[in-house]
């Protein structure tokens, strides 16, 4: 079982992680991968992600534990940038290997929804030379609620 959970404070190239991850899970049925990049929105010059060491990485490990408990997984890669980034740079890469595609796709969906609205990150954007904190999005909370089954949720 391959499990690779990381916070990175430097630019990374998703392809260099995904190739070895796929190779490390022989016999799989499928691999689903999501890579999020800093969007080239209008006037955004830079983005900064702050984390809190004692909570952020342990929180990602807990999320990985929940994914392994909930889905039939062979491997999980979850890498998140912190620090300052420019438009076009990767922020996050989640890759799940499983025997069946539904587990691989749902795991990526599940992890991304949680990273987006329940992980310990704070984001601010630089526009016209000034930094602005980003507030949580309603849509992110709605996405997260999809995973909260009334009974038996792991």
């Amino acid at each position, binding site marked *: 079982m391959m499990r690779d959970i990381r916070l990175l404070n430097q630019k990374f190239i998703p392809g260099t992680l995904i190739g070895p991850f796929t190779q490390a899970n022989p016999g799989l049925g499928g691999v689903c991968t999501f890579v999020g990049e800093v969007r080239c929105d209008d006037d955004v010059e830079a983005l900064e992600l702050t984390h809190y060491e*004692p909570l952020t990485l342990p929180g990602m490990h807990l999320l990985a534990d929940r994914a392994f408990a909930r889905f039939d997984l062979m491997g999980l890669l979850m890498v998140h940038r912190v620090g300052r980034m420019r438009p076009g740079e990767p922020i996050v890469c989640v890759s799940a290997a499983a025997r069946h595609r539904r587990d691989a796709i749902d795991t990526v969906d599940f992890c991304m929804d949680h990273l987006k609205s329940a992980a*310990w990150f704070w984001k601010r954007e630089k526009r016209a030379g000034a930094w602005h904190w980003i507030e949580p999005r309603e849509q992110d909370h709605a996405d997260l609620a999809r995973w909260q089954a009334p009974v038996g949720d792991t």
Partner: protein
Amino acid sequence: MITVVLLGKLADLGGAPALTLAAPLDWAGLRAALPASLVEALDDPRNRVAVNGALLADRSALQAGDGDEIALLPPVSGG
């Protein structure tokens, strides 16, 4: 000494990413010692409080001693 770590926009409100306060501190002591600009944020239940990396379920029960780290955590804005 107690370190108070201010995350996200609370760092702007507090004027620094971290403050140092004299130990010990309970909840009333923390409210009294923090800059006025942070007291309103401190009372907002959407902002969470952690001591040494453990979130407090009941912030009014806060007890911090010498060497402890208090974190004030506003709502996360997503990765």
